[in-house]
């Protein structure tokens, strides 16, 4: 019995070795030795034929052998499974160097993106955003802004006229007028939008984008203008900037000024972006002219206000290092796709 058991175990180990790591072969070995009609099962059945005194020892030896066989089979089956998994993974290996499938990425126009960023900053400072018509009348675009007919200030804005005395707005200031007509102070608003001037050359387009801000309340001063500009542009540029006001003339403000922001590229030391001056001209500003308040029925003795305006296109060009204005309106996919997000 002992000899038969040892021979069986040898045969089992040979068979298991031959089965290698093939799961089906390992299973066949299990059936051959441990199945219902397996060799070890048969050996166990033959124990009944032994003398009663020999039976316990033989049974114990066979059971011990079965434990060893089962352990070896379990181990072989596990290693066969993992070998099979490895083979299957190897067979389905992808080429990680190939580009995956993406959805196409569209781009928001840099002028839009700049407008949105500015709007978000102003909104967080309690400004409302207001819009108005692009086709305007003389009153809102000129008269109420202290630019009477036959006034030389109209030269600064070459206007597109439409039949019946209407025009394409030359600035977003008429939205200031409409807002002051609609709301009583305090007012704190911005008006971004498209504007039109009869001008077309390397530095001018007949259509571009402005953003103007207006604050009307009791006791508003140039200091509020300066502080608001500093807060807005420090957030826009992500670094603290200084604001400089220079005297300037716009018919709808008095005192009027131009406002500059310290160059963030060179930190005011002078560079190519600021043309060596340390300052970047951003736009016009000033205290709302009393004639403008009178035109919209706001008492200029009780209320004062500041306004400032700028060209969004120019800011966007500066921000993205765009060197040719025309790229903004040509719709060239090769230009626009750079801004895809």
């Amino acid at each position: 019995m002992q000899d038969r058991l040892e021979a069986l175990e040898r045969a089992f180990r040979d068979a298991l070795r031959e089965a290698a790591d093939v799961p089906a072969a390992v299973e066949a070995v299990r059936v051959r030795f441990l199945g219902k009609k397996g060799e070890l099962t048969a050996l166990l059945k033959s124990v009944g034929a032994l003398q009663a005194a020999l039976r316990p020892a033989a049974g114990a030896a066979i059971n011990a052998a079965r434990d060893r066989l089962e352990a070896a089979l379990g181990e072989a089956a596990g290693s066969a499974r993992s070998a099979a998994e490895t083979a299957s993974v190897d067979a389905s290996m992808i080429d990680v160097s190939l580009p995956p499938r993406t959805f196409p990425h569209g781009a928001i126009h840099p002028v839009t993106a700049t407008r949105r960023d500015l709007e978000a900053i102003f909104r967080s400072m309690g400004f409302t955003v207001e819009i108005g018509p692009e086709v305007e009348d003389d009153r809102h675009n000129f008269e109420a802004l202290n630019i009477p007919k036959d006034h030389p200030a109209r030269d600064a804005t070459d206007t597109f006229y439409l039949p019946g005395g209407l025009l394409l707005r030359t600035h977003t200031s008429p939205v200031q007028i409409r807002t002051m007509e609609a709301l009583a102070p305090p007012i704190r608003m911005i008006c971004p939008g498209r504007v039109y001037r009869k001008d077309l050359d390397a530095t001018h387009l007949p259509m571009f984008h402005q953003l103007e801000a207006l604050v009307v309340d009791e006791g508003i001063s140039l200091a509020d203008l300066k502080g608001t500009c500093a807060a807005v542009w420090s957030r826009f540029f992500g670094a603290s900037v200084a604001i400089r006001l220079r005297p300037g003339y716009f018919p709808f403000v008095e005192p009027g000024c131009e406002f500059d922001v310290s160059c963030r590229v060179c930190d005011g030391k002078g560079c190519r972006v600021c043309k060596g001056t340390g300052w970047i001209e951003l736009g016009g500003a000033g205290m709302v002219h009393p004639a403008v308040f009178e035109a919209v029925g706001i008492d200029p003795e009780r209320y004062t206000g500041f306004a400032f305006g700028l060209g969004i296109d120019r800011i966007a060009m500066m921000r993205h290092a765009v060197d040719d204005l025309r790229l903004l309106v040509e719709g060239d996919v090769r230009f626009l796709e750079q801004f895809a997000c």
Partner: protein
Amino acid sequence: MLISIAWLSELIAVDATPSAIAAALTSRGLTVDAVTEVPGDTVLDLDVPANRPDALGHRGVAREVAAAFGRRLVAPRPGPAVSGPPLAGIDVTIEDPALCGRYTARLVRGVTVGASPTWVVARLEACGLRSINNVVDVSNLVMLELGQPVHFFDAARLTGPAIVIRGAREGERLTTLDGVERVLAPGMVVIADGSGPVALGGVMGGARTEIHSGTKDVLIEAAWFTPAAVRRTARGLGIVTDASQRFERGCDPEAPAAAQDLAALWLTELSGGRPAPGTIDRRQRSFEPARLTVRLARAATLLGYRPEARAAEEALAAIELSPGRDGDTIAVTVPSWRVDLTREADVVEEIGRALGYDKVPTALPPSAPRASASPPPPIEDAARDRLASRGFHEAIQYAMIAADEDERFVAAGAPAPVPLDNPIAAGLSVLRRSLLPGLVRTADQNVRRGTADVRLFEIGRVFLGRGPGAFPEEPLRAGFVWAGAATPPHWSAPSRPADAYDAGGIVEDVLALAPGKGPFLRERASLPALHPGQSILWRDGTGRAVAWCGALHPALAGTRAFSTPPFVGEIDLTALGPDLPGPVLARTVPNLPAASRDLSLVLDRGTRASAVVAALSRVPSPAPATFTWLDRYEGPGLAKDEVSMTLRVILQPRERTLLDAETESYRQALIAALSAVEGARLRRTEA
């Protein structure tokens, strides 16, 4: 305005360098754009704002320099000696005082016309003018020094007896000294003698009476023309001159006397003239100096800091405003050349710019609750993001297009496009009624530049006229163009061209932003610019057309560079907006299993898929049913006019699990209902 430093230094003694002078002027609001060295001189290029005509002459600029450096102007030279018989025999009449407030004249006899000396030539050149001769040059010198234009007539060629300043008559003609015959119109300023017009007042002289090589006697005109009248005259004729620019902005009404004197002096010195005694001075308007008061408290409110009283007074005295202070209030008298100072705020600005805007502190306005009058519709930026997320690049296009460009992109009966009175180019002559013609043009340009696949969109307004003088409607639209492949090229699958269903999907992606305006129903579109067989129109819940898309009509696409037909779409965001839906109120998610059945159908080509779904939706169902088309096939195995489609029906019970028998009897009911749909049948028996 070009300013000669050499000239300036004759009017104001200041030892500052040209760049220091430039910096001082800039900080006072007269921005110097460039400082240029020329032989023997330095020239400042001064950007003079429209409200400062006093700075359009060297003397006015010298006043600013004097104020900046605390100096006094050099006194003007005395006028020339006079000789001969007094000025007589010329009668000046201002017929229309609305055109001319003051007209003065003076006679200088016996000039000899010749070349100007080199210093005159150099000075004129420094200021950007060319020397003509020693008489004409004097008029330019006077203008450049005083900012007051003067005009010289050849006195012998004036026909008496009177000079009349009047409005032009309809159709009246004048050949100006540039040799152009001008047809005048009422409202223009005319100087006329006995034979008719001899000059356009404040703009340009006439050829008949101009100075020529044989001129002996010169009549000097120095006047104050009404700014608006000069502007009307110059604009009406399309001419802008050095004189008209100055008169338009408003000259010093007291300058003509000084201008006469200086002109006569230089005619004496440069051309040997002999000024006659006597002068003509007709005033039709009194120019009382404005008296203003400024409250220091008001200045503090506007400037954000309280200017020191003595500093404010000194600043005002430096620009000759003769300030007198009484407590908090300073009274000033505005000199005749400062036509821009008319109210208190103007004087505050003078104080502010003299003391420097760097004195303005930094503050923030107090916060207060604010209402909005006319906020932008939130759907605008939402639609932008959605289109960009679908791979479309945002373009910005002019609102102006060529006159007929959008004709086929608008529905029949649309109002005519709003034309521009003064377009800048023929291709930009009317306001667009659709975003699409511009997008098609832009896409075409992209294809020509070698970009095969183009996806562009724009969100902007179109303009629908309501008659001359009436504000047009300005609906906000989203438009897109899709040319080339449906998906970016990829190694995993062959590329296919975009089609009408791709374009329609983009439209519905945007319509999905406004679910409350639905249901949106599709029908065939009839826009002339679209392929009649491949275009879709959407109507909102009220039946209003809110979007359309399709293949560009072959007749339009054929004239472009596209290799496959481009698809375009336009969505009326104003009709969908303005607001986005509020917060979604969530429904309970069902936790019962859904049952699904597929029906394989054969449809005649003319049968609409929506008709099948509509018929089947009417079959009573044991649980809420949804219908989804799974595939569509045409080709071998089917008749030529047949299409095979699979419809999946999903039953989602909400209260209890469905019994198989219920689902099966529902499927049988669907099959029975199908027999009532014309041109649709089950593909094979699925009993």
